[in-house]
């Protein structure tokens, strides 16, 4: 993936070069799909959201003021669309921890390497509070810095750090409960 901040691409687009927008899509589409899938957990919906992110970006790019990087701006659009998706489909967000069958879970964590165990961990991740979950995803999968995450989530870096740590401790607590 290329660097998200690309003033040259943006300048070309503002001058009417439509090819610049295609380049923008090529640069960021995989990262956007990855983020959408990690949040939504559904491949088909992630594809739809990826497409919608760029449609929304096309509409708003002329008003984009370059206060943040293009990449973080696209991530913010993605997260908002995912939130809208969960609002429209509340049942998709609900994760019944009983489905995790924790009483039968056998740790240590190394056993989670099995696909089934990985799915269980994924459900644990999905069950986290929204801010903790999205912050963890941005840090672990998108490998963004605290500063970039703070920009996307519109919060302080300290809050980002707290969300990550609370999220990790919560996951570990869920795993321990299965001991």
């Amino acid at each position, binding site marked *: 993936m290329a660097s998200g901040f690309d003033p040259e691409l943006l300048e070309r687009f503002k001058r009417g070069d439509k090819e610049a927008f295609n380049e923008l899509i090529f640069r960021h589409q995989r990262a956007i799909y990855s983020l959408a899938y990690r949040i939504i957990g559904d*491949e088909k919906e992630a594809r739809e959201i990826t497409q919608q992110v760029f449609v929304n970006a096309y509409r708003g790019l002329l008003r984009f003021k370059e206060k943040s990087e293009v990449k973080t701006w696209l991530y913010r659009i993605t997260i908002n669309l995912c939130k809208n998706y969960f609002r429209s489909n509340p049942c998709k967000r609900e994760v019944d921890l009983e489905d995790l069958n924790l009483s039968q879970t056998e740790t240590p964590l190394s056993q989670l390497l099995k696909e089934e165990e990985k799915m269980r961990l994924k459900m644990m991740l999905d069950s986290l509070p929204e801010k903790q979950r999205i912050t963890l995803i941005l840090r672990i999968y998108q490998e963004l810095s605290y500063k970039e995450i703070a920009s996307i989530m519109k919060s302080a870096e300290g809050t980002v750090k707290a969300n990550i740590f609370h999220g990790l401790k919560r996951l570990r607590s869920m795993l321990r409960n299965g001991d």
Partner: protein
Amino acid sequence: MKCKKARSLILELVMETIKEEDEKKLKFHLKNCPQCTKEWTTFRELIATLKSLPLPDPGAEFFKILPLRVKEEISNISLDKGWRTWIKGVFTNLRFLQPGEVVSVLVSLAVVAVLTGLLIFYPSYFLQERNLFFKTTTEDTLLQSSDSLTTLLEGVEESAVIEELSPQELQQLYNSLITSIKSESTKEELFEEKTEESFAFDYGHDLNDLSPDELKLLSQRLAKRYPVIPEKGV
């Protein structure tokens, strides 16, 4: 380093955000503390496992055609939908107006409504104003012609008072007047035609065809309209 401090730094370590100095101290602590080492191992495996969660590949074809699909969707955005969205947005934003802004908006809407109503129900008012404008313009042009006429009349030596002009001088004056009007008022065809028609209708183009009474009437009218006449002999 105490365990409490170590536990907080372990999370920094697994998230790869720890400072170099803290990392050295923590690793030294971990060598001598089995409990903290277990904690570190747990979080490290947790992160590793989270990172290993599969990401379904939508296929190269999806990424290849995505720009085309986006382009297609953008082109499908109809103008009608855009306007509806825009109007909806306006009404949505109205809810967030401050009291002062509400008054400004209402006053502006009232002014626009009154002007629109006048235009629709009293179009003659605007047309009347338009005629008044033309009338004023015509009179201005006439006064300009008057100035030019004064210059022209400087060549007429016989009389300073128009009633005292001979028929020939009156004819010369009339011809000068018509020439002057034509040259000075080409942009005001209305004035030109009206004036010339008026003279032609009332007195004819040739003053020789006019009766003495008609000549007298013409001279009176000219005197009334063009009161500034150079004195005789000037």
